[in-house]
């Protein structure tokens, strides 16, 4: 399991890194979000369209990046807790002297 998972993670990382390398060769590669590009497409199709509702609150850029990090940290923290907990449990069971199998 370990070797296979390691391989899969390396593959995923290579895909991400490779994407940056290939993507950077594109003209005007700014790595802008596709969500934003889609909304630009809306305005291109419908120059008259006016968004009829405003965001309740928009964080300043620095705070937004912090909150993004917070979201990832919360997710990774809980996930990591679970994975470590289960792995530790399994190892604990193995080490007990009465573990026959």
């Amino acid at each position, binding site marked *: 399991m370990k070797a296979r998972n390691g391989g899969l993670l390396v593959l995923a990382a290579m895909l991400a890194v490779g994407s940056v390398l290939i993507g950077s060769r594109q003209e005007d590669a700014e790595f802008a979000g596709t969500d934003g590009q*889609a*909304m630009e497409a809306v305005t291109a*199709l419908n120059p008259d369209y006016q968004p*009829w509702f405003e965001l309740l609150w928009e964080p300043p850029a620095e705070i*937004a990046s912090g909150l*993004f990090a917070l979201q990832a940290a919360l997710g990774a923290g*809980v996930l990591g*807790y679970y994975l470590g907990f289960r792995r530790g449990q399994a190892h604990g069971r193995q080490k007990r002297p009465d573990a026959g199998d």
Partner: protein
Amino acid sequence: MHITEGFLPPLHAAAWTALALPFVVVSARRVHRLMQDQPQIKLLLAASGAFAFLLSALKLPSVTGSCSHATGTGLGAILFGPSVMALMGTLVLLFQTLLLAHGGITTLGANVFSMAIVGPWIAYAVLRGTQQLGAPLALSVFLAAMLGDWATYLTTAGQLALAFPDPVSGIAGSFIKFASVFAPTQLPLAVIEGLLTVVIVNFLREYSGEELQNLKFPPQALATEGRS
């Protein structure tokens, strides 16, 4: 797949909200029942939600020179069934709307529909379908998570196309336009999401056997158990 605040006409926004709401209510009930009937799987439920939280926060680069993010809702869908993820996805989207200015309140229904309903259902259907065809579990999980991710983005493209038909080529032409904004970027990202989901499932099969048994996962194992 986040439609920005105010970027769906009021009628569309209301319709998608009305369509998504029953799924979220059923989902909340299902999560509640699951936690009462099987309190021992609370931790795994939290971990699946955390996976969606983590993956949807990661803006990943793509070969097209633009960025997008994975959804992370496939994992929970294949473990707990698709209906559970409607609530989880809604929580993720609410967090992003209120704190990150990503998405919106008026477009929440549409975004929930694509990421927390269509994605998980497609993922679940792909898992069951490929398992019935006898595919190896890892391949099934990979395809489920990857296609669930694509389905989410195609749904968003469809929602935008319905709201903003092309003056010349209509809804179909508009759909192609929006899909071509998302699709090339999302192709490699969905592969990454698929790989990461397989990594987690591999781990669960090694260390969380008891929980998977309670969940009757993988579905194939259930069938062989039934026969013996």
